[in-house]
């Protein structure tokens, strides 16, 4: 970051400051928001469990230093301002005064240092990687936190949302076995809502944290998360007003369209910019014919991704052009495009020698269907039909979550579908899928397809530690060109999950973190 960018960042921080802390006209106190949590989370402490439902619910209970807007720029969270030294090594955060935990004890910079350096490095895989870059973390006074990095890490300021660096109370966890702490059941954070009751299998009841540090917030009195396992029942609950908000995959994609016609509801795909769920057809690069680049390029040609977006995801998706989502920083759309062309696919397969036999069959490939809902099954059927057009039999193999995780993690598959969050910056959410240092057997969401290219490794490594944004763009543009040519995985869609809510509720989607937000500013009109 150069001096000019540094000044801009400071101005942005200053400009963002008043956003959350003043009460605009029309914001009223009171009201209950009924919503859904699916599946039921195993616990609510986001420092120890990072499943999506845990983060949605825990996001109301635990906070971090920053939030990120739809443009992925940092906004004040518990930190009201921040400074980055010109060498990009020292990050100084100033906290809001009077922040308290739900048990009434004050939250200070000591809690931040303890959470980031002691707890999260032990229990949170993503945070462990981020904070491993920190040489020292200090709390010179109760409202100041200073992180000193070992070497510059460009996206460090992007590591402080409530899902990546939740702050837990030092006075509860210090000196204990974090995961077994009996107070985990109480879920004590600093968020605008605190846990009142959790009736397992039924609902989780959050109520207002009266000592919340932002004036007048939270506006709502309570939020009730209902556990409704059946997707048809969830849709019904939204339809008849039992719940006023759904998020992520609560509603199946094929049901989303009908809610657009329901007048009292707002359907938006905003609020997922930070996560930018990116989906692809994963091919085990170690096995023939997937080990041939021409085969993988043929796959890009033989899938009609526009039709996939329209027919399987009912328009709740956008065709992906490469490894970086168009919503993520450093996206470059000026890459080779693979149009839908059966002829081009056949030509590539012929060229590599994968010719049809007397029955017109070129190959048989096993496709493990991810067990994450109806849409994955439908996508599998769509792929099977697509591959059949060029004489490839795609055999769909069913399994459950445990079976899928084991097969993919241990490289015991030929093809499957996968989806990862981009986390706002390619260094945080994209590189992990392609760099050869992340080919780790037994580890899901690593470079499981086994793609290796030294030039790609070098570009990703350099981009992560380069502070100059223009230079980073150059590096990421180059890496996108190489990857799109090599097709380590066949990118299909940028999924656009909906957030559907009753229009009586305002400020529901106010940042790029969407439904994982604190909801302190949400109010009922």
């Amino acid at each position, binding site marked *: 970051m150069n001096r000019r960018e540094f000044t801009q960042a400071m101005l942005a921080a200053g400009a963002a400051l008043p956003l959350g802390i003043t009460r605009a006209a029309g914001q009223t106190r009171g009201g209950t928001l009924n919503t859904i949590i699916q599946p039921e989370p195993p616990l609510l402490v986001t420092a120890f469990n990072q499943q999506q439902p845990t983060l949605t619910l825990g996001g109301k209970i635990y906070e971090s230093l920053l939030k990120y807007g739809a443009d992925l720029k940092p906004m004040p969270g518990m930190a009201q301002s921040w400074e980055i030294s010109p060498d990009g090594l020292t990050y100084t955060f100033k906290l809001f005064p009077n922040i308290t935990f739900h048990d009434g004890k004050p939250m200070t910079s000591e809690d931040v240092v303890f959470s980031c350096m002691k707890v999260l490095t032990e229990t949170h895989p993503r945070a462990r990687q981020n904070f491993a870059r920190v040489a020292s973390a200090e709390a010179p006074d109760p409202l100041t936190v200073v992180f000193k990095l070992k070497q510059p890490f460009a996206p460090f300021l992007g590591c402080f949302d409530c899902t990546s660096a939740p702050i837990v109370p030092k006075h509860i966890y210090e000196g204990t076995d974090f995961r077994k702490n009996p107070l985990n059941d109480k879920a004590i954070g600093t968020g605008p809502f605190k846990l009142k009751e959790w009736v397992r*299998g039924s609902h989780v009841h959050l109520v207002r944290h009266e000592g919340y540090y932002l004036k007048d917030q939270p506006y709502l009195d309570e939020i009730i998360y209902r556990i409704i396992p059946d997707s048809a029942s969830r849709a019904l609950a939204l339809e008849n007003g039992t719940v006023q908000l759904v998020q992520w995959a609560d509603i199946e994609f094929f049901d989303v369209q009908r809610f657009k016609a329901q007048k009292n509801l707002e359907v938006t795909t905003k609020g997922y910019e930070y996560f930018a769920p990116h989906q692809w057809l994963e091919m085990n690069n170690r096995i023939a014919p997937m080990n041939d680049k021409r085969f993988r390029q043929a796959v890009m040609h033989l899938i009609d991704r526009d039709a996939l977006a329209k027919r399987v995801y009912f328009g709740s998706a956008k065709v992906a052009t490469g490894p970086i989502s168009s919503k993520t920083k450093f996206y470059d759309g000026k890459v080779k495009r693979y149009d839908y062309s059966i002829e081009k696919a056949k030509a590539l397969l012929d060229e590599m020698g994968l010719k049809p036999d007397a029955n017109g069959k070129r190959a048989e490939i096993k496709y493990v269907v991810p067990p994450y809902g109806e849409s994955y099954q439908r996508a599998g059927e769509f792929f099977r039909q697509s591959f059949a057009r060029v004489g490839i039999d795609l055999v769909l193999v069913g399994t459950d979550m445990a079976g899928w995780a*084991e097969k993919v993690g241990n490289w015991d598959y030929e093809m499957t579908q996968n989806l990862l969050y981009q986390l706002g910056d390619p260094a945080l959410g994209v590189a992990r899928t392609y760099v050869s240092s992340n080919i780790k057997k037994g580890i899901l969401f690593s470079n499981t397809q086994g793609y290796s290219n030294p030039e790609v490794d070098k570009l990703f490594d350099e981009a992560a530690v380069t502070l100059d944004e223009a230079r980073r763009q150059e590096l990421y543009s180059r890496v996108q060109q190489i990857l799109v040519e090599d097709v380590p995985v066949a990118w299909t869609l940028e999924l656009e999950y909906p957030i559907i809510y009753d229009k009586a509720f305002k400020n529901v989607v106010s940042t790029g973190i969407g439904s994982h937000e604190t909801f302190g500013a949400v109010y009922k009109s």
Partner: protein
Amino acid sequence: MIRLGNAATIGLMALSRIAQLIAVILLIATFNFVLVRAAPGDPAQVMAGQSGASDPKLLEDLRKEYGLDKPYVVQLASYLGRVVKLDLGYSYRQRRPVADLVLERLPATLLLTVTAFCLALLIGTTLGALAGLAAGTVLDTVFTVLSLVLYATPVFWLGLMLVLVFSVTLGWLPPFGYETINVKLSPIERALDVAKHLIMPVTSLAAIYLAIYARLMRSSIIEVAQQDFIKTARAKGLTGPSIVFGHMLRNALVPVVTVAGMQAGALVGGAVVIETVFAWPGLGRLTFDALLQRDYPVLLGIFLILSIVVIVLNLLTDLIYKLIDPRMTTGAA
């Protein structure tokens, strides 16, 4: 004399069964352990998978915490040691004792399944008996067709249709849940509220059991009606009701009790489909989730409880046989 002998035999049989029970439970516990571990998948991988992030340290930590890093034999020995002490273990995934998890779900499940079971048994046997007594008539045909239709109806479909009619269209009943959340009610109001929530899940679940008992009872009545002792009763000059209640029903109930005894075990396990459709916070759903997550301690705990319940119910079924039909005690049957 006969009654005393009967009681003594029942007592002896119960004692010998209890001795067998302990051996069987340990055997079943071992079998459950092997069976659960035979399924592919690793709870640490599932948890890492659902978190969208994974690294070697996380997997290593989780496996260590779950005790999965130890050899199978050591894990089995430690599990059996806990079973002997009646300790159901600890769910590391949910970070709570398995006994707590099961106990908090059991009341909802029992309320649902026992109500459905009793209703089905009562209505099913009554309808079956009426159909059997009126065999060959229009009434018999109507009952038979009705029970066949109910038997063939997928339970989730029936549940959804009930919701569509009684919740969406008519707005009479709550579509799902165990009770109205976040309202203050007196105990009586609360009981009525739960009862209201119970109607549709119970109806859906009872439908299939009802059909089974009705069909079973019908054929059983028809068979018993042709027995010599019924002819003797008629020859003695007994009238219709005293033949039916004094002779036929008691004998016709034996196969129904057999089937009901077998099915009663499944009641404790809950009704996964119904609990899912109606968001009923029961044990069936807990079992299903535990299976998907490979939450071994929860699965093993539930399986163990189910095994014990099935054994105990079988024992009770045998005892009920003796009460219904004393001939079974002497081996004359």
